[in-house]
Structure formats: structure tokens, C-alpha cells
């Protein structure tokens, strides 16, 4: 499991166990459970980024995933998936386009989920929001 965790960090095509499957609008996101320190309630007054923005929606009340370095990403729903799944690799171009926040894809609960790095994705969302603002 620890190996798998390492692999998933360096090699996205390795096995990973313990995921947080999230919904933001009609999009699906997956985060490693170990990247999340706590799950809190997300409110608009928090000014933290929300995953709905990535899908072209405005933020909505939901849950806030807090990383170890304090980054926060808001999502609509969160569920815990404890089964080990294979991490599918992603094209480098896609990785660069998303600020290296995507770690690969996982297949769980009969569908394919993009596996994201919580801190990077949070910063990516902030950067995307500021760039969109300018």
C-alpha cells in the first residue's frame, strides 16, 4: 500500500488506495485521501477556490477539502472510496496544461475519474481565476 502510494505520487500508472470521489456540478474529481487533512464545510465567504469553476460553473455551498499545506478546494459532494484502483497515466501536455495538478485517471464505481493533486489543483484554480480576471 505504501509502495502504491509512492508510485501514485511519482507514477501515476501505479496502484492507489483510499480516494475521495468528489462531484462539482456535473464534473467528477478524485483526490488521494492522504492529500486531504480534513473535510470542512465550504462557504462563499471563505474565498477559497471551488472545483465548479473548472467546469464553468459558479461556486456553490458544499464541502471544502483541506490539504496539509492549507490549500482548500471546494466541491459539491464527497464520498470515500477505500478500494485500491489503478492510476492511469495522463499525457504530459495535459499535465502541463493543468499546472501539473492532475496525477492520472482512476476507474472506480464503473466510471473514469481524473485523479488530482489537491494543493496543485487549488493553486491551479486560483491561478486560473486570476488569469480569467485579468
Amino acid at each position: 500500500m505504501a509502495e502504491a502510494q509512492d508510485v501514485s505520487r511519482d507514477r501515476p500508472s501505479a496502484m492507489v488506495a483510499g480516494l475521495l470521489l468528489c462531484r462539482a456540478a456535473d464534473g467528477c474529481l478524485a483526490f488521494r485521501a492522504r492529500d486531504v487533512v480534513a473535510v470542512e464545510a465550504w462557504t462563499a465567504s471563505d474565498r477559497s477556490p471551488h472545483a465548479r469553476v473548472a467546469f464553468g460553473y459558479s461556486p456553490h455551498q458544499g464541502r471544502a477539502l483541506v490539504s496539509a499545506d492549507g490549500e482548500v478546494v471546494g466541491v459539491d459532494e464527497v464520498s470515500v472510496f477505500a478500494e485500491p484502483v489503478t492510476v492511469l497515466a495522463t499525457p504530459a501536455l495535459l499535465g502541463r496544461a493543468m499546472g501539473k495538478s492532475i496525477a492520472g485517471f482512476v476507474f472506480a464505481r464503473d466510471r473514469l475519474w481524473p485523479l488530482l493533486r489537491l494543493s496543485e489543483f487549488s493553486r491551479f484554480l486560483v491561478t486560473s481565476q486570476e488569469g480569467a480576471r485579468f
Partner: protein
Amino acid sequence: MTPGSPSTPAAPAAPASPLEGQSRWLATPSTIAGIGGGALAVFYGLLTLEIPPGTGLWFALIAVAAVTLFTVVGDSVEQRCLHTLRRLGEGKLPPVPANLSSAAREAFAFPDRSFLVNIVFWCVGTLSCGLVFSLLPGATWEEAGIRIATMGFALGPITSTLAYLMLVDRSRAAVAKIAALGLTTEQVTEAWPPRRRQLRARLIWFTAVSVATPSLLVADVWQQEMRLGMEKVAAGHNLAERLLRAAELQDEGRWDLALFVALVVGMGLAIAFVAGSAISRPLRAITDEARRVASGDLRRVPLIAAEDELWAAGTALADMQRGLTSALSRLQGAAQKLARSTDQLGDASATNRAGADEQMASLNETSATTEELAASAAQIAENGAQVAQMAERTAAAARAGQRSCQAFSFSMARMTLDNDRIGAAVARLNKRVQQIGQVVEFIQGIGDKADLLALNAELEGTKAGEVGRGFSLVAAEMRRLAETVVNSAQEIVLLITEIRDRANAAVMATESGIKAMQAGAVLADRLVSSLTVIVELADRTSDAVRSISISTQQQQSGTTQLAQAMSEILRVTMEAQAGGSLVKHHEVLSALAGTLQQNVATFRIQSDQIQAEGARHG
């Protein structure tokens, strides 16, 4: 007596009055009767008085003087009674109606006055003669005076009556002559109204005088002769001489006594004859005039001068003639007018006949219209009664509506109050629901936090790997419970929201209902007021309709009577038109007018009378 006065020869020649000498002529019978009576009295005295020797001449002188004196004086008094007539005859008074009326009055009254003068002068004359004769030597009042007075009392009435009867005839003639000078019968009647009715008394007097006086005188003369004869017989010295004297008296012819008796009886017969003539003459005249009037000759009745009842009969005949003349004149005028009117009536009847046809047609139409009017009136009366019933029902319905509306208004007020209560209850309920919402929100927050805790717990269990697997399962189960709580709370919130919306809607509906009810209450109040007015109007309408119904019934009765009257008029008019009664009546009237004119034409009326009557009656 000679009429006229010898003391007016120097007067210029003037037309002689028709009444000249009438007064003297009128009084002449009285003078003649006085002289004749005096002669008869002297004759009677010679027969019955024992005139002392040597006093015969004195007796004759006294008698002649008395007769002359009292005849002259009596004539003078009588002439005074004919004062106006004498002056008219002398031309000293004009022959105007007033003087003529006065003269006629004197002439009418003269016989009675002359009779009274004669009686008085006879009494005075015989008494004075007896008194003077009794003064002669050898004569005594008891012997000669009383006999002479008795003689006067016996001969006075018969002489006066004879004079009266002769004067009556002349008096009538004088009145006729006076009337001929310018007095109508009416004026004569007015001058001497027929008031005295003494014919029966006069006849009694005439009979008494004509029978009693001669009988008394004859008996007296006979008794006196008997007494003288007995004295002569008794004067004989012996029986033979007495028988001889009686035989001489028996053989002695007393022509003087026979003459006296004949004269006295003749006077009685003359009185009877003259009295009968005095009565029968005017009666014959009245009879002749009455026959003339009865034959249709209505010319003016001449003056029939008479006395007492005869004068009244004559004047009554004249009045009757005047009345008949007047009536016939009016009748004649009326007949002429009737004839003219009948002609006009004939023309009018022809016009009326045409008008009657038009009237008949109009009456037919009017009768039909009247019958239709009666039928309409009956229908109107029936409708009026129905309208009255409807008006009463309307009034009753209006009153019921008023009561219902008042009840409705009361219910509306009560519903408004209930709605207010409902609104207040709903408001309280809404508040409670809000409180429940807050509680549910609190529960939802707890559920959400519980879900979040369970999620973190599951996350931590998952991070722990196999060790935390059981923990994760418990946390997942708790998370599902928390989610269930949150979902249920969410459903409760939805329900509460729905309840609150419904409650708000109920409150709004209640408020709207309250407003509607308030508006309804106002409308109900207005409706009550309107219904009150409607009830009053309905009552008035009911009264008015009832009055109209009564009036209509009366009108129907009157119209029915009118229709019956029109039917009766139509029937009478049809009968009259069918019978042509007006034409028949006109023909009958024309015939009557002709007959009347013919009958009136049979009377002969003087033209001046017709003109006078026409002028009097217009």
C-alpha cells in the same frame, strides 16, 4: 118735461151735445108718477074722507099745492143727483171718459135714488097735508089727518115703485147713450161694478107692492063705504025708512068706486108688466148675445145696461166674450205658428231621417265599441286583480327578502369575526411553523456537521488502511445516518416552507375573505336599505294597485251599464227608425194644425180685437 134750459139763448151756436136734455128726460117719469099718484090720492081722499062742509075747496087747494110743491122740490133733488149728466148735456163738461164714467154712474144709481126721494117726499107730503087739513074748521087730526097720512103711506110705495120701474128703462137707455160717446163696456163696468145682488129682494118688493097696496086700498075704501052706508041706514026714523034707504043705497051706482079700484088694480098690473119687461128685456139681450157668441160670432158684445144680477150677467157675458176672443186670438196665432212649425218640422224630419241613418250607423259603431270597451274593462279588472295579487306577493317576497338580507348581513358580520379569528390562528400557526423551521434548520446544521464529522472519520479510517477499515465502515454508516437526518430535515424544511406558503396564502385568503365579507356586509347593509325602500314601495304599489283594481272594477261596472244603456238606445233608435215615428207624428201634427186653423177660422173676430190681442201677447 121739456129738455133744455131757456136761460142760454145768447150763446154762440155750438154743436149740441148728444146728452143735451138727458137729465130732464131721465127724471120725467118720476115727475109723471108723482103727479099721477097725487091725483089718485086726491081721488082717494074724495072717496073716503068725510070732508066737512065748506072745506072741499080748501082740501083741493091743499092737495094741489102739496103735489106741486113736492114735485118741484123732488125734481130739483133728482136733478142734483144727475149733476154731471146735466152739465155734460149743457156742454159745461167735456165728454172725456172720466166725466162720462161719472155720468154713467149717476144714470145707473138714479132709479134707486129717485125711489128713495119719492118715498120720502110722499111720506112728508101726506103728513104735511094731513096736518094742514086737520087745521081746517070741522076737521080733526084723528079723523082726517090720520087717514090722509095713511093714504100717503099706502100710495107712496106703489107710486114710487111704478116711477122706479119707468126710470129703470130710461136709465139703461141713458147709460147706453153715454157709453156711445166714448166708453167701452169695460169702462162702464169699471164705473159701475156689478156688486149689488138685490133682484130677489126687488121682486119680493114689487110683488108685495103690486098685490098688497091695491088690496089694502080697495078694502079700506070698501070698509069706509060700508060704514057710511050703515050710518045712512041707521039715520032712518023707522024700519020702513031704513029699508027704503037701504034699497036706495043698494040701487045706487058707485062708478067712482069702480073707477078707483080699476085705477089701483091697473097700477098693480102696470107694475107687474113694467117689472117683467125690465127683467126680461136685458135677459133677452143677454140670450141673443150668448147665442151669437155660441154660433161663433165673437164680435164685441154691446153694452147691456141692467141692474143687479142682470147687470152682472151682462158684464160676465162681455167678459166671457173678451176671454173667448183673447183665447181664440191666441189660439189662432198658435195655430199659425203651429202650422209654420209643422212645416219646419217636416223639413227637419227629412233632415233628421238622414241624420238618423248616420246616427244609427254611429250608434252601431258606438255600441260595438262600448261592448268591446266593457270586455276590455272586464279583462282590465281581472288583470288588475291579478296585478294586485302579484303586488301583494311581491311585497311579501320583498319583506321575506328583507328579512333574509338582514339575516345574511348578520351572518356576514359573524363570518367576518370568524375570519378574523381564523386569520389570527393562521398567523399564530405560521409563527409556530417558523419556529419549527428554525429548529429543523438547527437539526439540519447538526446533521450536516454530523455528516462532516462522519466524513472526516471515514477519511481518517481510510487513511489508516486496514486498521481503520472498521472505523471507516462505522463512520460511513454514521455518515449515511447524518445524511438521512439532513435529507429528512431538508424535507421537513420543504414541508415547512410549503406549510408556510400555504399559511401565508391562507392568511392572504383570509384577509381577502375578510375584505370581501366586509364589502359583502356593506353591500348587505345597502341591500337591506334598498329592500326596506323596496318593501315600502311594494306596500305602496300594492295599495295603489288595490285602489286601481277597485277603480277598475267600478269602471267595469260603469262600462257594463254604459254598454247596456247604449244597447237600449240602439234598440229604441232602431224601433224609432223602423217605425218612422217622427214622420208619422209630423203628418198627424200637420193634420191637427190644419183642423185647428179651420176650426179657429169658423169664429168671427173683429180685426181690431185680433190686433189688440196680438200686440198684448207679442
